[in-house]
């Protein structure tokens, strides 16, 4: 199944983009492929969220912050590669010219290098998560408390990134990118390559999460979710495991941000605030927690629905999103994957009613 989906994403869609004629029904437009690449970047983030929420029982409502930091790191690099092609012809980004900044702030300087930007996009969220998680888990802030604190974190980050004097573009964020590693971002070829890279990263992230879950640490994490007290009394240190998985999820969020920016072409504080962070949680809830595949399905599905609905009924999207929150939590706590499992279970039960009925039940629980 993994390989099949991987094959479709990695080869079939790009080939359908390149080979068939423009008007053929098989043709996948550049726009659609680009959109899909964005959804897959979100799926990487959802994987990280599923890892902490689904498996370790830590609900973070501040995942958008890590996503945003990763995205801003990449955005800063792209901003600097514009060079003097900008509107004002200055070597400085346009918004700095507006704000009458005459010299590049020191923390922008490393971002001239692409590899430094990518590294920062992964490591800055990781460090941030490390410090924040250390303080939170050490004092055993968990459950609702942790959710509230991370939500406050999202609010703060949004407020700070909105300020002009932090030299991060203020409300308008970073945009108007031109090239990446010398390739023009507006070329379909560049976008296709970015799409392929995103798919590869998603595959890698999925494999890594699977590996973590299958490992001994993964089992400890599940045990922490089910009863932290018992894990503690068995001589493990839950805080260390939680910290580890929190940092991993932050890095995945950062990676998602890095991949998101060149494909979408803009990053603003609006993408990292309280509401986007909560929406990310909905992706996982819709797909089904503790399944990993569900996170990907949820991220892609909800975003697909969003882009369809916001096009045709922009006013109704909040109703739909809110309704989705309520309905999923109330009626489908196991999300799409849970439903799929139930349906499959029913079929299997019907088929295997005569020989053996216990095997199915075992699988279900």
């Amino acid at each position, binding site marked *: 199944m993994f390989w099949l989906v991987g094959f479709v994403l990695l080869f079939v869609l790009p080939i359908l983009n390149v080979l068939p004629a423009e008007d053929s029904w098989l043709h996948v437009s550049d726009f659609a492929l680009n959109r899909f690449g964005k959804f897959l970047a979100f799926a990487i983030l959802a994987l990280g969220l599923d890892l902490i929420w689904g498996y370790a029982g830590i609900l973070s409502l501040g995942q958008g912050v890590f996503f945003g930091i990763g995205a801003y790191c990449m955005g800063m690099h792209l901003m600097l590669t514009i060079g003097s092609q900008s509107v004002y012809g200055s070597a400085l980004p346009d918004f700095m010219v507006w704000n009458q900044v005459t010299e590049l702030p020191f923390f922008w300087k490393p971002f001239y290098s692409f590899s430094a930007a990518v590294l920062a996009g992964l490591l800055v969220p990781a460090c941030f998560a490390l410090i924040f998680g250390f303080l939170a888990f050490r004092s055993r802030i968990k459950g609702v*408390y942790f959710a509230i604190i991370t939500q406050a974190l999202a609010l703060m980050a949004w407020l700070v990134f909105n300020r002009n004097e932090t030299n991060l573009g203020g409300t308008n964020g970073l945009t108007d990118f031109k090239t990446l590693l010398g390739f023009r971002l507006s070329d379909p070829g560049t976008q296709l390559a970015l799409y392929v890279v995103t798919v590869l990263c998603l595959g890698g992230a999925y494999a890594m999460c699977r590996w973590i879950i299958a490992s001994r640490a993964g089992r400890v994490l599940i045990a922490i979710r089910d009863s932290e007290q018992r894990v503690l009394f068995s001589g493990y240190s839950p805080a260390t495991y939680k910290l580890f998985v929190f940092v991993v999820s932050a890095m995945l969020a950062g990676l998602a941000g890095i991949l998101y920016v060149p494909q979408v072409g803009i990053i603003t504080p609006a993408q990292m605030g309280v509401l986007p962070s909560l929406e990310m949680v909905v992706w996982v809830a819709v797909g089904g927690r503790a399944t990993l595949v569900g996170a990907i399905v949820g991220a892609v599905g909800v975003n697909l629905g969003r882009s369809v609905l916001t096009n045709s009924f922009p006013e109704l999207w909040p109703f739909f999103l809110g309704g989705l929150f309520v309905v999923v939590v109330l009626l489908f706590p196991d999300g799409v994957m849970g439903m799929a499992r139930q349906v499959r279970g029913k079929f299997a039960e019907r088929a295997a009613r005569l020989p053996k009925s216990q095997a199915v039940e075992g699988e279900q629980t």
Partner: protein
Amino acid sequence: MDESHHRMKRLIGIGVCVAYLGWFVLGSVVAEAQTNVSPSPPLEQALADLSSEVDGTREQAVRLLIEQGDASLLPRMEELRANADRSLRMAIKPVIDTWRHRANLASPDAETRRTAATDLGMNGRVSAISWLETAAANESHRWARYAMEESALLLKLASDDPAVKQQAAAKLGEMRSQNAVPALQALVQAGGGESATAEQKALAQRATAAIERIESWNVWSSTIETLFRGISLSSILLIMSLGLAIVFGLMGVINMAHGELMMIGAYATFVMQECFKLYAPESWFDSYYLAALPAAFLASALFGLILEATVIRFLYGRPLETMLATWGVSLILIQGARMYFGDLTAITAPSWLNGGAQVLVGVFLPFNRLFIIGLSILSVMGIYALLFRSRIGLRVRAVTQNRSMSACLGILTRKVDAYTFAFGSGLAGIAGWALTLVGNVEPGLGQNYIVDSFMVVVTGGVGKLAGTIIASLGIGGLNKLMEPSFGAVYGKVLILVLVILFLQRRPSGLFAVKGRHAEG
């Protein structure tokens, strides 16, 4: 005996009424008579001179009229102004203004007297000194008298006698007069130059001392105002967090839609205002605000009841899921309010909450903020009475402490949950009602406060109201305390950091429930 006493009282009452009426009639007759009285010859001459084209004559006439004329000549002046050209109108304006202010010094309204005094001080007519001093001698209102004295001294600063000047400067410093700072600074500057006379230098010294005094008082007054603003924000947070904390303590439910319940309260106030505009006589308008209190409480409580019955009751014991579901509800409510009410939602505060009370020089406490503080104190008292002095409260506390044991003892825990949730929601409605006084009514109203009030609940700890009260005081106070030096945004960031550090020492909040059942 008693009977006759009453009759006496009634008679006196009637007598007083008649006297008032008589006074009123007499007063208007006298006023009528005064306007018809013709002014003294020099004033008459001055009035005629006003129309003269020669500049010097006109100026002299203006000065004379200001010094010797009074408000009784106003109708004549108005008449003059009605058919005057531009330059004449400009020339007359100070005369009319000064007369008006002078007449206003005797106005029955203290606020009018006060602004008149301040304006006279600013306009710099030396002749006003004696008016101000006479008015101040008979003034009973403290801040009106203050303004009169301050203005008289300000005018004296411009006098010719150096001794008077020095005395005025010193006295202004003593009074911590804010309005005097620019004039005093001018004196300091005049005394600082090379060519300054000894007299000027001595005066500059006095002025410097006075400015220092005023400025050191400013530090105090701004501290007091900051403190007040902090308390006012705290009390808003407190009313909001109380509802949140009660529900959280009882049911372990974090209601993300709490802010939207507050929004419903605010919109209920708005709707009540519109109803009064449409259906009630105009003189009743101010009472809409009081009528809106029960409306806001009931609307939010009803909504809370519905929310509890349709969503939350199915999610007991799953706090994280409850958070998400209620957040979904809040999204729907916000968008619903946006689509239904749009942006045309202005609340006119009732007139009895406009203005404020001045308690010290430069310290002005607006009534609406005072009202909110009072309301929060009342709310806390009401909640304490309800929880600790009533049978319902006893049940709520019992269920909070041990749900299954309470159920065994015959308490209908489901019912208690529903009522408590409705009560907590109603408190949110009251918070929304109060918020209409200090902010706009908009769909995103609840979002501005919700994260802060969650922080209050987390910091305060679960199940103890005292924790909520102290935490809201602390967070609201710190918020306003740090705003001047760090800016609103960084102040908030700092508070988050402080809360996290605080939770390092006390992981379950200020007043944690002690015992083994605290861990889930």
